[in-house]
């Protein structure tokens, strides 16, 4: 089961902060991050990649995007 981070509606840089906190907590595995702006989508993807996590998929949803990241 992937860990879910709901960062919808949060100001910059909170979506990245929450994502990095979860990355730190889990170390590896799968995380789904919900964001509601293109800016957050780009920032979260960039931050996850810089931590060595892989972007599995980005799905457009009714209220934004679901970004799935993974590290083995």
């Amino acid at each position, binding site marked *: 089961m992937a860990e879910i981070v709901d960062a*919808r*509606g949060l100001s910059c840089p909170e979506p990245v902060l929450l994502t990095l906190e979860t990355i730190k907590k889990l170390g590896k595995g799968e995380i789904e991050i919900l964001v509601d*702006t293109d800016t957050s989508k780009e920032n979260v993807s960039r931050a996850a990649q810089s931590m060595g996590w892989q972007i599995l998929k980005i799905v457009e949803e009714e209220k934004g995007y679901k970004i799935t990241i993974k590290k083995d």
Partner: protein
Amino acid sequence: MEGLKNFFATKGGIIFVGLVIGVLAPVLQKLGNPPNMGICVACMERDIAGALGLHRASVVQYMRPEIIGFVLGAFLSALAFKEYRPRGGSAPFIRFILGIFAMIGALVFLGCPWRTLLRLAGGDGNAIFGLLGLIFGIWVGTRFLKAGYTLGRTQTSASKATGLAFPLLMLGFLILLLIDPQPEGEPKGMLLFYSIKGPGSQHAPLFISLGVAMLIGILAQRSRFCTMGAFRDLLLFKQGHLFLGVAAFFLSAWITNIILGQFNPGFEKQPIAHTMQIWNFLGMTLAGLAFVLAGGCPGRQLFMSGEGDADAAIFASGMIVGAAIAHNFGLASSPAGIGPNGAIATIVGLIICVIIGLTMRRR
């Protein structure tokens, strides 16, 4: 369109945007904008407050088309790239207060982060203290963020029209400027106030300012260019993406100034600047802290307003009101030094921002 969308999110994209803005700002100055003030979001919003008569400092009254262009450019870009999303409701009044103090801090220094870099690129050594203060203020803000600071979630608005209010206000300002131009040598049109001397009387031709600002609005909306975020992300995550854009902006402004003969290194007699370094430092500490707590530099707040973000629009409105307060009550500096109440206002502002930083937390 998709390729273009992705380009601006890349390193090359943000550097390109920084380089372009860095050339355009000194060029606006060459074409008539005040010295080292090709673009200054704080100064230009202050001039708008003056044009509307919210303050009556006679030397800083002009309905600056650059601010209008930033919002309208970002609005058109957000529409074209399907990123226009009306939203709001994340601690609006706190954001208004932060806008007021961000402006007060900026007017103690005499410039926003954009002008801090432009002053430095024009050789104004006093801006070093402003820049150090800005970085320190941002660092303080990142401590609050690390401790769980938040203004809470914004809500997507039910009506598409919600996000139109600020862009429409800017369109209204533009119409006013067009139908009520400055009568030759007069300080007042039918409604708008104008300056006949001082920085408010210095401006590039209206349509050039507007066009350049709309272009910058589009580029910055696409790339998320943010002068505060650049330092914040470096300090908080050691991520240099936005910083690359700001570094490119500074370097190209510096080179453009040298080419245009606008680079005059020194500390004394710098244009629209003072040498009271402790207040240059603390003024920008206050501004930097307020920008972090509100989630964006004053330019970025305008670009987000164009995307439909009513919270950013409230912050920008707070800055305009802050300018009126600063000039009505002797808080704003002048080349002679800080205003009679500038020091106390800076300290009060710092205390209030720290209280906001400590009390607005994730539960």
